[in-house]
């Protein structure tokens, strides 16, 4: 019998809130997490827009010798993971006695790299960089820290796939469980929010320059969009084999029905239509579902011209004139990049569990392609039992997940 994969815990730390309850409320009210950051302007940024969130203060929660290895994104991931584990009914004793895995999306740790290089250049003495720098600087900083902090004993690996990292982490985790290699995996995505991490991204004019109106800047699918707004934080889902979850009396929130993926084999930054289309189709095939089974699509749409257009075309290629509500939560959060694939599963889960679809914020006027989709610019009350979530990244990496309510 095929092993089924379910979600038994969720945790999040984002610009929409520091707990699931806060985030659900923000999704419902359509709150924007975007602000203008004067520090970025002083640093020479073309666009000083960013999601705003405070770094968690873990002093008193973790010891100095635990915190010193944690880069900014690790702190977000720790808080999100603690919430997810608690919600899944997992305590430290369980984690130490069972082979729980860890697959987390992350694709940079720039702040730690920049600070250690600055020290090396100024002091010309590597000792002064300190013991934390190496562990904070590596892409796998989140998984190396979480693995040690929670004493996890299963697979331990970071998935780096640009803005699809978090989604691939969940998808790959679901396969490991399906294939019987793991019974439970902590999956997620983390994204640093400091200026150093995205200065080079700003440099290629990818960001919205609507600085005079920050909350209107991220406008996925809207005719007048002019670029994305960077965001971040961390999101964690606990995924588990169904029978295993039943046996331990875990809260079963949803089932991961399918994971689709593809690579565009094309341009490094410009997405195409064929790649995402194949990812969507593969996901539906893997889920053994048709388009009429999908009640909501959480689009990748980041508010860039080409990206949103090509995703709208890909969705239309697959769904045709069958109108499924499509929104991009990035209108509220900005682009949470390495975290987005995981956070957007949680945003979609929160909406599914609470019978609403939040407004695709700032979607005011469609363009030629988004006009072919059903994109609610206002919140709608809607009961749906299955959603599809897209995540696409630089280099043409695509990931699609389908999750069913339970």
């Amino acid at each position, binding site marked *: 019998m095929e092993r089924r994969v379910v979600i038994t815990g969720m945790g999040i730390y984002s610009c929409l809130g520091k707990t699931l309850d806060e985030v659900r409320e923000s999704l419902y009210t359509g709150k924007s997490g975007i602000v203008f950051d004067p520090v970025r302007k002083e640093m020479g940024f073309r666009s000083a827009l960013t999601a705003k969130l405070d770094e968690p203060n873990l*002093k008193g929660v973790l*010891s*100095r*010798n635990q915190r*010193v290895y944690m880069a900014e994104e690790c702190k977000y991931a720790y808080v999100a993971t603690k919430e997810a584990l608690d919600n899944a009914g997992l305590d430290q004793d369980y984690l130490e006695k069972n082979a729980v895995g860890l697959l987390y999306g992350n694709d940079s740790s720039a702040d730690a790299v920049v600070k250690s290089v600055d020290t090396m250049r100024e002091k010309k*003495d590597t*000792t*002064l960089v300190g*013991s934390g720098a190496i562990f904070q600087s590596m892409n796998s900083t989140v998984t190396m820290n979480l693995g040690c902090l929670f004493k996890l004993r299963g697979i331990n690996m970071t998935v780096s796939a640009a803005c699809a990292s978090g989604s691939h982490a969940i998808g790959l985790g679901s396969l490991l469980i399906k294939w019987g290699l793991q019974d439970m995996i902590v999956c997620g995505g983390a994204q640093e929010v400091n200026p150093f991490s995205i200065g080079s991204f700003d440099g290629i004019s990818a960001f919205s320059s609507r600085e005079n109106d920050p909350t209107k800047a991220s406008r996925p699918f809207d005719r007048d969009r002019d670029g994305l707004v960077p965001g971040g934080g961390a999101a964690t889902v606990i995924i588990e084999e169904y029978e295993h979850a039943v046996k331990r009396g875990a809260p079963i929130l949803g089932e991961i029905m399918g994971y689709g993926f593809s690579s565009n084999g094309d341009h490094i930054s410009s997405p195409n239509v064929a790649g995402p289309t194949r990812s969507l189709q593969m996901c539906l095939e893997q889920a053994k579902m048709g388009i009429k089974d999908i009640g909501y699509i959480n689009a990748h749409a980041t508010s860039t011209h080409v990206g949103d257009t090509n995703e709208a075309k890909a969705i239309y290629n697959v769904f045709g004139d069958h109108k499924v509500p499509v929104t991009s939560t990035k209108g509220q959060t900005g682009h949470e990049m390495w975290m987005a694939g995981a956070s957007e599963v949680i945003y979609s889960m929160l909406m599914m569990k609470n019978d609403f679809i939040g407004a695709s914020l700032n979607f005011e006027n469609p363009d030629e392609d988004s006009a072919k989709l059903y994109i609610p610019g206002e919140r709608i009350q809607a009961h749906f039992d299955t959603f599809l979530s897209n995540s696409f990244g630089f280099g043409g990496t695509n990931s699609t997940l389908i999750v069913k309510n339970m």
Partner: protein
Amino acid sequence: MEKQELIDQVNEVLAEEFEVEVSEITPDANIKETLQLDSLSLVDMVALIESTFSVKIQNSELSSIQTFANLYDFIAARMSK
């Protein structure tokens, strides 16, 4: 710098960095045990002393610095040079 002033300053920076009470730091106490240093955080102690007092402790010299008194003496000797 007077020796007591040096001792107070060493104690203060170590207590703050390694999150212990200054009162826990006594001359005869073992540094690693008191500050809960492992091989990695020991590096941070060396870096802290270097950045605060401009005194570099070589790896080969670490074995002779076991107690806080050893550390005060080491720093004082180097600073007087």
